[in-house]
Each structure stands twice: as structure tokens, then as C-alpha cells.
């Protein structure tokens, strides 16, 4: 179901018959030809949406569900700011239609810390190592870093640099990002 691109993020392919399943319309009426009724599971919670099929996961999160932690940097799959997890894999939300991820587990930056606010090890390491400045690429960096460590691609600084290369940071926090990912990976291993 997924195609690998160069730095680890995945693009979700459409179902094999090419058709996304349309849900029943709201209010018991016939489904609108221009909107879909979707149920998305985001950070463990169900969200119902009535949206056009062309709405991306990124715009659904930011504009419809007001989960604005996921950032729009380029809307073209080039910067990584919109990285979220779908079934645990890192995915570019700007290149994913919301309709493609119904029935899957979506995790965004807002769902990374524990219920009690305990930071994920990667989040804590980003703060400690000052691995960001403006903070705009940061949610995507952190989501990529969590997946990078889980994928087993944080074994060395070289490997971290390579597998974090799909997330641009114009403030230039890269050396601090490498330090943060290195530390978080060590903590998670031990």
C-alpha cells in the first residue's frame, strides 16, 4: 500500500480498484456527489468530517479539525513540515488525501506526549538541545525523528543526517537536531 521515497516518508497509494469508499451522507440524506462523510482516527480519537474528496489530510487537520500543530510549508511534498504518522509510518499529510486514511491510526504532534503531558523522549531532547528556532518545521522534524528511531535509522550521526534529510529547517538547527535524535535514540534503547 505504500511507496517509499528517498528519505523515509511514505506516500499512500489509492485502493487497488481506484475508488475510495463513500460513507453515508449526513442527516440520513443521500450522499452528496461532492462531499464525503469520513471518520478519521486521530491521536486515538474519532473525528467525523463532511468534506470534498480533494481535501488533503493536511488541510483537514489544520482547517477543519483545528489541529494546527501539523504545518504547511510547501504543500508539494518537498519540505517535510507536514509529516504525521499513519499506522506508525511517517507520511506527508500534504500529499495524502484525507479520504485515503479512513480506518487508519493517525498520529500528529498533538498526540505525541502522554495524556498527562509527559513529553516524548524526542520532544524533551529537542528542547534540551535547542533543536529549533522559529519552530515551524519542528513538529514535522519531531514526527520524522520518532519514526526514524523506530525504523532503526538512528544508529550513527551519519545515518540520522541521511534519514532526517527530508525535513527542511531554514533556521539551520540541523546539528542540534542530530544531537537531539542521537540522545533520544540512546534513551529509548536503554
Amino acid at each position, binding site marked *: 500500500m505504500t511507496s517509499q521515497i528517498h528519505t523515509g516518508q511514505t506516500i499512500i497509494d489509492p485502493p487497488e480498484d481506484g475508488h475510495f469508499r463513500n460513507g453515508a451522507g449526513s442527516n440520513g440524506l443521500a450522499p452528496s456527489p461532492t462531499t464525503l462523510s469520513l471518520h478519521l482516527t486521530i491521536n486515538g480519537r474519532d473525528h467525523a468530517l463532511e468534506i470534498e474528496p480533494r481535501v488533503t489530510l493536511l488541510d483537514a487537520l489544520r482547517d477543519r479539525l483545528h*489541529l494546527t500543530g501539523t504545518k*504547511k*510549508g510547501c504543500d508539494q511534498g518537498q519540505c517535510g513540515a507536514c509529516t504525521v504518522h499513519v499506522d506508525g509510518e511517517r507520511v506527508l499529510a500534504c500529499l495524502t488525501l484525507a479520504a485515503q486514511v479512513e480506518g487508519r491510526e493517525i498520529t500528529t504532534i498533538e498526540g505525541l506526549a502522554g495524556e498527562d503531558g509527559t513529553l516524548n523522549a524526542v520532544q524533551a531532547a529537542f528542547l534540551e538541545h535547542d533543536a529549533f*528556532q522559529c519552530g515551524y518545521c519542528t513538529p514535522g522534524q519531531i514526527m520524522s525523528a520518532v519514526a526514524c528511531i523506530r525504523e532503526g535509522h538512528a544508529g550513527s550521526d551519519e545515518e540520522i543526517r541521511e534519514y532526517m534529510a527530508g525535513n527542511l529547517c531554514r533556521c539551520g538547527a540541523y546539528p*542540534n537536531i*542530530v544531537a537531539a535524535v542521537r540522545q533520544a535514540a540512546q534513551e529509548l534503547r536503554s
Partner: protein
Amino acid sequence: MTVHDMKHAASDSARLEAVGGRLSRVDGPAKITGAAKYALEQQLEGLTHAVLVGATIAAGKVSAIDSRAAETAPGVLAVLTPDTIMELKGASDWLGNPSPQPTYNPLAREVTYSGQHIAAVVAETFEQAVAAAALVKVWYDETPAIVDLSDGKAGDGIPIDAMTKEWGDAEAAFAAAPVRICAAYNTPREFQAAMEPHGLIARWEGDALTIWEPSQWLDGMARTYAEWFGVPFENVRLVSPYIGGGFGSKALALAHSAVAAAAAKMLGRPVKLVLNRPQNFTSYGGRAATRQTVAIGADRDGRIQSIVHRGVNETAVDGMWVEPLGSVTSIMYATPNFSSKQNVVRVNTVVPGAKRAPGENPSAFGIECAIDELAHELGIDPLEMRLINYAEQDPHAKKAWSTRQLREAFAAGAEAFGWAKRSPQPRSMRDGRQLIGWGMAAGTYPVRRAHGEAVVKLLADGSVVVESSSIDMGQGTYTILAQTAAETLGVPVENVSVKLGDSHFARAGVTGGSRLAGVMTGAVYKAAGQALDELIGLALSDPRSPFQKLQANTLQVRDGRIASSRGEGPELSIAEFMAAVGREQIEAKGDTLPASTTAEERYANYTTIAKSIPHTEGDWSRHSWCAHFVEVRVDEDFGTVRVSRVVSALDSGRLYNPKLAESQWKGGIIMGIGQALLEEGIVDRRHGRIVNGNFADYMLPTNADIPDIQTISVGIPDPHSSALGGKGVGELAIVGIAPAIANAVFHATGKRVRDLPITLEKLI
């Protein structure tokens, strides 16, 4: 408005929290959890979405627009064209000069650059607006465009006399010098490329306008909106709690800003307009392309006798931008004879703008490569060459440096890098098929100063609130102002909330030119000092105060507790004291302006740049300084260049928070690596269009491009530069990186590349 509350263990050392301590960012927790709401993330009832249509020609007229299909598309509320958008008034420029035109139309009939906005579609949803914008049909009468500086039609341009700097007889001294070098150095059009796109949300309520927009200058932009729409300045509120990077690009209200605000007024509904990524390459100016020639004449011992410098930068057909190319050339080295002149050439581009260290950055590329060429010519080590010609005072202003730790930077950087082990001959160091090159260069940036103001409030619960309409785009403003207020008042930093990014707070000038930290720490220091004076005054004099009967001259506040400095009498927390005297709050507004300043002068101070204080004011010439040492590895077969090591020693004076300053320095170095090896706006010569206006084709450095970077602070407090002794941080470190890399590439390969970026086809 944003509040940052610092929560950390009380055991954290006071050293960490004080000014100069390595406190982690107080806005960090919001940024790493996704809780930080950037301006464009404001959620409003009834929000509509606008999408722009850009010109597909670079010069000519819009002869017709057919918007019928777009108007009838689902969800569309309006299609705005040059004929249907409301008329705006002309606004003054950033110096406060009135507009030459009484009216302003942000949608163009006369096209002067590709991508210029000519129409906008407003719809209920973003998707509907995007789809309908594609249905707008435009016809043009196209005329020939001047696509860039190398266009045959471009000509020599317009002399900018204000840029001329001359002393001695530079031409004659150059002609007479026993050793001479002369070369041309070029930099391409470069872009700020902040990760957060430009855009805004505009909402009118009667004659009151609220704008949520990423902004480096709330008060300046509010002034522009007020003038466009003919409403009082106080009616415009700009909100910009976090900025996703600016690098100089987000200081002005631009054409797209006017379109969104006008659309909101016309529709009577809030409008959100965000530039898509390609539009971020054409809707505002990046760094202008530049050309320089640098001629240096020296004696055989390497002493410079003369520097002759000529520069050109591109500007727009209908706008002026001067990138001061002689700024570093004229101060870095001692020379008895000097001449620098500059022209600008009009081409069909959006008006170029400020990008990190405008002027100093390309200027250093010229002079710092040229000095390396001279060193090679004479067989003198490039570091020794710089020491031979060390400027003991400002050669142009003829004034003493306020502080100049450049000699210390050379020494510390060379030591940490291992420069003494450099083999001088090009192509003499290698690792298998990789040629290794070691290069160095110096950098500098002036200390830009201005007056600022801030409000500091002591609340009944003992907490402290700092308010300013200045901003934090990643430099650490929230953090250093919390540290400044905490230290000045004697309270734990966790008790301080800093509120920024709302033009209704105390006014602030532009955040640019690396001046914010010096200006704002000074203003907060002053306001907090006034609040402390009032607190202590009250404690000594109020009849309800438990301290009144002490008959003391003063009291001290430590860790948020008030006590006699002699250790006698009561000790109260600020909250207990406020309760005792029945006060809700103590508020102080501190500014660094002279007391005689009029209201008009205050307004001009915050809404224009006309009141900036020259860096050579009075007896001193004030600058930050740095020295970069770089190792590159060049693949002998493929010509690929990798930066494998960077050591930079920097003099930014006193650092208010070294942890955050080091991050900014590294960021500047990394942007400089991009400039040296990757970044170039490529213009299609047929259509005058930027063809690589996206993040895949305009290449920014990625994590995999960046090696370990070591930064060393060699600064000392500079009392002439700011209240607390700091100089500029944000722009300094990018200055000199590109020439250090170019010099390292020459050392590795023996090839001198004088056109940035240094791409492989220039090396093989």
C-alpha cells in the same frame, strides 16, 4: 497574544536564569507540542479563502480578463481584478516618505514581473478558491522584458552616489602598486525561503481592522494598512505571536496583504490568503543578484596600498533596492587609498528585499575572496595576510572601534581548527580521490541601534508580565526578555510571562539588522528597573507597609522576596507585600527615548526606520566580528563539494543567552553553506520567470549537507553598543561563510570560482 510560563524545578541554578545564562527557550514547550498558534492558524467564524492569480508574462499590459467561469464556480464569492478591487490610498515607504501616487492598486494592469498579482478569487473553502483561480483567463499585450543583470538590454544602470566611499587616490595608488590583483565576483538572486509561507487573515469590524500575519514589524505594517485604508493607526491591530522564519522578508505589508485586507472589506467577511510556495518566490524580493570587481594593490610584504571596488545590484523596474556592496570592503582592512562606487540596474523582477545581512553578505564575498587571491599571489598565509592589514580603527569613519575582538577570533578559530597544520599549496591535501581544502574568511555586521519601549507589570500574585509589540521569529526574544526582567526585578524566571506579537502592546520598531535583542533588553531593563523602584519606594513609604518602620534607605528583592539588605526586619514575598499594601499591580512603561521626544517623533521611531541611530554615532564605530575556518572535500572526478568541518569564532559582544545565540550563529553558517554551494534563483530567459521557485529545485541545505559546526564566542561586553553590552548576533555568522568556502575550494582544487553557487560544472 501569547503567554509563556516557565515551569522548571526550583533547584535550577540562578546562573542559568540570569542574563547570560543558557536557559532553554521559554516558548519551547509550545513549539514541540504543536500548541504554538502561528498567525495564520487563527480560527475565525465565517472565514473565507482567497487565492491569487499571477501574471505569466514579465512585461506588458493585461488587455483582458475573463472571470465568468471562475465567478460561477462552486463556492466562489468574488473575483477581484484590477477593475473591480476597491481603490486604496498610496502609503508612505519605510523611511516615512509619502507615496508618489495618491492611490494604490495591488492588482496590476501594467505587468513589470512574472508572477505579479493580477487577480484574486475568494471562495468559501480553500479548495474551491484554488480550483476557481485556475479558471480565470487572462490576455496580455506583451513587451520585451529585461530578464536579469546579464541581459544585453540591461545597460550599466543608475549610479547611487550615496554609496560612494573614497579616500586617498585609489586609482593612482593601484596603478603604482608592485603587486596587483583584480577580479569580478558574482552572486545570484537568492531567496529567504522561510519555512512558513507569507500570508494573512484580515477581519474588519466597522472601521477597525485586525490582521493576523507573520510579521517582523507590527507597528510599521500597521501604519501601512492604516494609510492604505485611510483609518487611524490605532484602528489597526496586527497579531503575530510566532513567526515561522523571516530572514528579512516579513517586515513589510505587501501587495498580497493589501489584496486580502481589501477583499475582507469588500465582502464584509474575514479573508485568509496564504501564498503558495511558488508564489513565495515571486511575491516579495529575495537578495538581489550582484556583480562586483575588486582590485587590490599591495607592496611585496603584503601591505595593502589601495582598494578599488565597483559594484552593481539588480533592482525592479518600479521599485528601488540598493544592496550596499562596499559595506565590508570599506572597513575590513587598513588601506591608505580606497574607492568604492555602486550602480543599480533595473530588470523585470519583483523589488528585491532584505535577506540576512543585506549588503555585508555579498560585500564580504568580494573582499574576502580577493584578499585570499592576494595572499596566494604573494605566497603569504591567508590568516597572516589579514593580520598584516588589520584595521586598528575604522578606516572609513576614522573612529575607534567600540570593541573589535577580531584578532582574538582569528587566534581562537585557528587554534580550534588546527590552521597551523595547513599545507599552503593548492591540491596538496587529499584523502584518496577527495581533494581537501582549508579556507578562511572574516565577517562583520554593524551594530544597528534604535530606541525601544516595554511595559513591565508586577501583579498581585507576585508574577511579572512583560509586554512588547516586538516579535520572536526564533531568535529567542521571549526567553531573553524573561531573563532580563527576572534578573532586574530579582524574581525567578518561572514567574515571568512575556507577551509579544500584538501591536496593541508597547510599541516596537522593526526586528531586523540584528538590533532587536540590544534594543529590547535595554527597554525591558529600564521598565523593570522603574517597576522595582516603585515597588521599593512603596515598601519604604506606604503606611501599610511592614517595611515602613525600618527607616531604611533601600530594600532588596531576591528570589521574589523583599527584605532589608542589612538582613533585619521582615521578609515578604512580592505577593504578600502587594496584599499588605492593597495593590493590584505595579506597572511601568520604560523607553530609551530622550524625555523631550514628541508624540510625532515617537510614532516615527516605531513605524519608520528613519530614526535608527547610526553605528558610527559619536566617538565609536560599532560592529560585530567573526572569523570562519572551513574544510571542504571535493571529489576529484565528479567535482562535488562537501563542507566537512566548520569552526567559527565570533564577537557579538556579551551574549544574553549563549545557548540561543550559538543556535543563531550555526543557522547563519548553514544558510551561508547553502549560498556557497546550492542556492540560485534561475530565470527563464524567454519569459523572465523564476523556474525553480519551489523547495525541490531551489535547493536549501538539508541535514545531510551539514557537518559538525563549532562556534566559539570571543566577545566582551560592549558598553557603547547596547545597555547590557551585547552586539548583533543573527546576521553576523552568514557574513564570510561563502568566501571561506570558495577559498577552501581553491585550496583543494586550484580553481578559483568567483560565481556563486560553486556547483560541480564550474569545477570539472
